[in-house]
């Protein structure tokens, strides 16, 4: 069982208190109807699925109930960082919501 640091409670707690909630920094488009079918499909279905550090969302569902973001290494399962929703990914210059893309490699290094 993993230990996870909740950035809102500022406590490190067992995984059983948390729920996984998919990849982070995938923003819902402001005007979905303006998107082409392909663009919308990319938002709906395409995720980065890296081997290495992955930015992802967790919810402290049996605690403060807040959604937050985390960087976790998908090879070792080790958490690199956790941070509040809306904050930029640590070690990247991109603002929250910018596509992760190449920044993923920066964080992995």
């Amino acid at each position, binding site marked *: *069982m*993993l*230990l996870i640091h909740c950035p809102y409670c500022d406590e490190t707690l067992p995984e059983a208190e948390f*729920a996984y*909630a998919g990849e982070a920094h995938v*923003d*819902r488009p402001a*005007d*979905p*109807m303006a*998107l082409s*079918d392909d663009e*919308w*499909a990319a938002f*709906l279905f395409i995720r980065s699925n890296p081997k290495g550090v992955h930015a992802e*969302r967790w*919810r402290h*569902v049996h605690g403060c*109930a*807040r*959604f937050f973001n985390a960087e976790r290494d998908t090879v*070792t*399962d*080790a958490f690199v960082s956790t941070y509040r*929703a*809306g904050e930029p990914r640590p070690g990247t210059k991109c603002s929250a919501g910018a596509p992760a893309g190449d920044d993923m490699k920066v964080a992995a290094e």
Partner: protein
Amino acid sequence: MSTHRIAGKGRFDHGGPVRFTFDGKRYEGRRGDTIASALLAHGVHLMGRSFKYHRPRGPVCAGTEEPNALVETSRGKGRFEPNTRATAQELREGLEVRSQNRIGSLAFDLQAVNDLVHPLFSAGFYYKTFMWPRSFWDRVYEPVIRRAAGLGRAPDAPDPDRYAHRNLHTELLVIGAGPAGLAAALAAARAGAEVTLVDEHAEMGGALLSDPDVVIDGKPAWDWLAAALAELDRLGVRRLTRTTAIGYYHQNFVGLCQKLTDHLDEPPEGAPRERMWHVRAVRVILAQGALEKPLVFDGNDRPGVMLAGAAQTYLNRYGVLVGDTPAIVTSHDSAYHAAFDLADAGAKVAAIVDVRAAPGEGVLVEARRRGIEVLTSHTVTGTNGRLRVKSLRVAPVSGGRVGAARTIACDCVLMCGGWTPSLHLFSHTKGTLKWDEALDAFLPDRSAEECHIAGAGRGLWGYGAALADGAEIGVTAARALGLDAEAAAPVVERDRTGTGETFKELPTDGDAGRKRAFVDFQNDVTAKDIRLAVKEGMRSIEHVKRYTTNGMATDQGKMSNVNGLMIASDAVGKAPPQVGLTTFRPPYTPTTFGAFAGYHRGRHFEVTRRTPIDPWAEAHGAAFEPVSLWRRAWYFPKAGEDMDAAVARECAATRGSVGIFDASTLGKIEVQGPDAVEFMNRMYTNPWTKLGIGRARYGLLLGEDGYIRDDGVIGRLGEDLFHVTTTTGGAARVLNMMEDYIQTEWPDLKVWLTSTTEQWATVALNGPNARRVLEPLVEGQDLSAEAFPHMSVAECTVAGFPARLFRISFTGELGFEINVPARHGLALWEALMKEGERYDICPYGTETMHVLRAEKGFIIVGQDTDGTVTPDDAGLSWAIGKKKADFVGMRSLRRPDLVAEGRKQLVGLMTEDGDVKLDEGAQVVADPEQALPMKMIGHVTSSYYSAALGRHFAMALVEGGRDLEGRDVFVPTPEGIRRATVTTTAFYDPAGERLKV
């Protein structure tokens, strides 16, 4: 009569006998014996039959890695256990032990015929033998294989024992209390660390228990051990024996299974049998030692053939001499010490056969001093003896050629093929291993956790080395904890050092293909099988393993993996690390389900949620059904009624007069705040801006992919307040989804969500007399059709309780849903029942609710939808706000696949014969004459008998279903193909006249 118990030998009290039976025969053992040591004391080696060939087998080892001596044990009713390791289970008074995996007696097993036809059972025989004819599989092969397969019988009574769970946080967890683990625990505890030390055996000491002659710090080994344990206790170290570290998980989370009562004659009443410890340690030291490997030669599996180290343990720890004339076969110096100990205890050692050319000089001197014949550069070409080994054929090997053989008489063969560092737990953590050329063994490489490995686990040999390393690692761990520590390695005299070599199967004369040289005893895998697998194309050890089943038995190949690898790598022609090592997975040893389940069984397995009205339903004989975690009243049978009769009566009573239903389980979410209406507009498909205060609307919730997720009636109680209802099972999911959007997509919206599911009790009244029953109890709200039309909501008083009153209908009848604070739910129900007496008010359950809603074509999300159904598929396009710019899932409704022709649509099905009920889930086909496999165009989602229609009816999702209206489709059933006509889903009162009252 213990023929092989040696006076003055052994760790424990030779007094009071412990009585037990083996295959019905009475035996006596000593307190502290295992089943195996007690039987060996009586000269009994034959303890089981092998899995595939049913060959007679005896114990190979003296620990939990035992592959052969698996027995059934019974400690009374319900306390039956198959596959108990005779080498690990301690005796207790009255223990019943039976051999397993045999037909007939253990000495004469009818299934041993398998051994005579063993060429039929070569590697991969399943895939080769049972291919044809295909029709034989179901009728012949499978039943026979099922009957023959498996070790032992499954218990057939519920387990009456209790199992406990406990959490533990510790600074330093030391796994293994052999010399390295003890030294590590001592060093760390002396430095002030908070230490937990665990060992799977009944006693701590590890190999020291089998080597009393070693001298440590000037004291005999056992005196040093006693002093060390006493010091650990003084230092406050938590010591757990009979405790196996079964799994090592992330962030130093270790599962320990502690056996508490299996060794006790009379366990205390109510005491747990086992306890699972969930340990979180800052640092972990693995001091699990090494496992002795067998040598691979023809007939190495006969009873009486065992590991040399095991024989040494039986002698020194249990006072049992496993044979009078042992022959030793070895490739490691350690077996010499076993030979010396047995010789010194009175055994006549027949010979030491060493596969190597040059054993250690020290052991050769000792052997000569005792007059033991040593044959170097020799191989074993076979053994003899049916139920017990009688002799050994040995031959010199020179330049790869096997010379003339000679036969050596013996009554046991003690083998040693070297030692494998026990790195199972380290592998659980994804720590990497590295092949060591000098040791021919995998050693730990990179660690993924805050863990250290000490002693034989990292390839060190000898007590001095293990103790020094343990002390050093203990200091390292203590310093990592921020403590000051100094290492003090004990001084060891009369150490038993040595080296060895690792071999593939031993060279033999004659036809190697006819030799039965076992690698994996438990799964009956021979060297020939592994070579055959390579010949047939397997190159990776993972493939060889699966094809031959080498290492796939319950011992996870603790003895067989490295031998299998040596043979496979020789056959492939590559170095062992290139062929690879299979992955070890938890648990380290087989673990009872009870230990995992712990307290979470029976009523404690899962919570049962009950509504405030549940006690009334129970008192009135309701049948219940589980709906997610809720227990809901299913129907209320009267005397003599079955479910169909009760449901038909409840339906008729509701449509005829009035029915009452406990709807408290409906999910309820309060949506509140200045932006509540904007939030509702964005979440639900429907428009909410113009919904007036005091009005309610059916709400449909989609996922972003456009598929239906949930639905429910939503009432507007104020400018900024909505009372949202969800499906019973969807309440938590919907709240999670709403919170997700509020917190992460639209944090600017001023809106707050509160789950109120358990705050409100909800009672539904339905039927033409519903208003008449309710009206006298309501204050503060005019219930007339004009003042309170269909789809209204009001806050008022009902039966004296503050209430949120909805006029809505899930039945097609005049309907009300009354929400009162949960604590008043039962009183409200009783008041309504009393008021309804004159209208013959009828309580109904979930089944009648389902029938009544289906008669109106109302969907149940999750029954009539399955996560791939759009609003249009379900006939709910009307629920979508046409002028809305956006809502969750809106964009997806224009995706090409979601607007394509031929999607499955929800339709009604009327069977040709109204008495025929279609099964929910049954497949729908267009043409029953088509060739198999038929093209399935849909499936039945709901199917009931309708009292109102006087016949059965169904709903189904059918491709292009609405275009098929009036046409026939066919539903294959076990009774034959049924014809059914496609209809709309408005089966009853399609114009909704009954609501207009």
